[in-house]
């Protein structure tokens, strides 16, 4: 009985080898680039208003510029989130 159990466990080990992960390496996906830039842009610093006393229109233009910078950065963050989510789906499909 003892030997039978040992023999059975050896056979079971044989079956287990088929469930091991396949040694195929998968490259980490490259991040997407915007235009010719290869590295991801950082969110730029917001612009300040120079001068001691400026017309309100000048200040307003700076504010508009800053809002644009914010929305562009927000788009990039959204893009990254989308990139991560979809690349993860692609990556997980390989393991299934």
């Amino acid at each position: 009985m003892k030997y039978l159990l040992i023999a059975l466990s050896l056979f079971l080990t044989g079956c287990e080898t088929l469930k091991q992960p396949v040694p195929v390496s998968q490259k980490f996906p490259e991040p997407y680039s915007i235009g010719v830039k290869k590295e991801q842009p950082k969110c730029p610093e917001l612009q300040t208003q120079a001068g001691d006393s400026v017309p309100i229109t000048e200040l307003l233009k700076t504010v508009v510029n800053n809002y644009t910078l914010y929305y562009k950065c927000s788009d990039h963050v959204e893009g990254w989130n989308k990139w991560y989510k979809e690349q993860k789906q692609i990556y997980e499909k390989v393991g299934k």
Partner: protein
Amino acid sequence: MWLINFLPGWFFHLMIFAGILGYVASVVLTFIPSVNLYKSVIRVFSTIVIVVGVWFAGVASGTATNEDKWQARVKEVEAKVIKAQGESTELNDKLSAEQEENDKLRNQKAKTVTKYIDSWITKEILREVEGPERVRIEQVIEYIERCPVPKELLDAHNAAAKGEGMKK
């Protein structure tokens, strides 16, 4: 199991066949004196040959099956990886184009607002308006020209833009 790797698979089947043949001979060919004399030895030997042959044939076919399955799995995963790499590049191209388009749109929208502000500076806005509304716009333009934003308020704006608090 070097023996399995060393010997071809058909050898074990031949062993089984030879074992069966030997056993049958020990039963059927008893009329031959030499066979009859050693029939017990031949039976034991044939049985051992059959058992060993069956054992190795089973192990050899099992090993081959496992190896085949493993190789098939490796090929399947490799194909999936290649497909995934293609999909990944495609996704990057799509996102890259999307982001570039978004940047362009944001710049265009900002330009329209800046152009509108400029129309107040250049008084171009007056060209399109007549009547009492024109008077109100003239008052706004006068306010823009006469009332610059003081340094204290600019400092508040700059502190917020830099992400700093106000220094008292």
